[in-house]
């Protein structure tokens, strides 16, 4: 590991913890609305599309929190399953995350075009947090590649 890249490790870990923190806020916010219908947060319809019913969504969100915490912990300790680079899987996740961000951009444009009453922030909570989740995946890949760079190719004799 080069000195510059080793120095970047705390930054990657901090970004991952920050994204996890944002995701936890999102889960807690929706849970508060679902359980107590708190007036200071947007109504339930703003938080999710309804494709996955909330009784399934909430436990899945808890599992995602655990998974992201494991990723961030591994990067903080600089060892563990998620720090080990798996190039094929990593590249797939990186490109899938870009595709996903693109999909979210399309979803935002389509949503605003089809539902003018939502302009410009109505129903954007799930769009934003999908980007946060897949942003975490992309950071994980970029960080593991930076911390464990590919060995230089051996020149042919």
């Amino acid at each position, binding site marked *: 590991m080069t000195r510059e890249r080793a120095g970047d490790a705390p930054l990657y870990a901090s970004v991952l913890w920050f994204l996890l923190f944002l995701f936890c806020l999102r889960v807690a916010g929706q*849970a508060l609305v*679902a*359980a*107590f219908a708190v007036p200071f947060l947007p109504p339930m319809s703003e938080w999710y599309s309804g494709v996955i019913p*909330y*009784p399934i969504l*909430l*436990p899945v969100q*808890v*599992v995602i*929190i*655990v998974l992201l915490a*494991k990723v961030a912990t591994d990067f903080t300790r600089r060892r563990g399953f998620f720090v080990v680079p798996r190039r094929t899987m990593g590249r797939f996740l990186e490109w899938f995350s870009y595709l996903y961000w693109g999909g979210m951009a399309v979803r935002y444009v389509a949503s605003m075009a089809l539902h003018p009453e939502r302009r410009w922030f109505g129903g954007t909570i799930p769009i934003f947090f999908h980007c946060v989740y897949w942003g975490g995946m992309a950071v994980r890949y970029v960080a593991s590649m930076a911390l464990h760079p590919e060995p230089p190719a051996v020149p042919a004799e």
Partner: protein
Amino acid sequence: MTEPDVAFTDYALAIECVLFAHLVRRREDALFFGSAAVASLAGGTVHGFFLDGRTVGNAILWRITLIAIGITAASAWAIGARVLFPVPTARRITIAAAAAFAAYCVVTLLITQDFRAALVFYLPAAVFLLIVLSTAYARARERGILVAVAGLGLMFIAAAVQQMKIALHPTYFDHNALYHLIQALALWLLFLGLRRLHADAT
């Protein structure tokens, strides 16, 4: 949501147990906390969304909860056996616990889904672990083991609080939520004790 306080405390317990399962070193310890995490996640979802026993969600999740509690009990036997007995005896106790767990699965899947079935299966395992850890403490006078004994004692107090329906608030923090809160503290003490115990053993 039907019982948000119970569901949220269950989910918090699940996250805590996953953390402990990740941090312990022995397989049976990881199984103990991991299965407790599954039981909490499934149980929390039942309390939050599927209290009606006629729903499919309730039928599936409640059985998962009961079976996960059974795994926790079986791993408690394995932990206790490993602490106090020589390896061949510990293996026999673990095999017997696994066989009892198989029978328990048949009962909970096909005959009854009453929580008392889980209690009947879990209680002897918890008492066994308490006796084993108390004996280990009497022998070694190690403070770490005493912490684990305190954790198990607190689990019995938590169960008593739940059975006596003692609540902090009838709506916002009922007896089940309080049970989870005490249980979280008890599991933390047990985790600290088990880690210390096995650190000394290695």
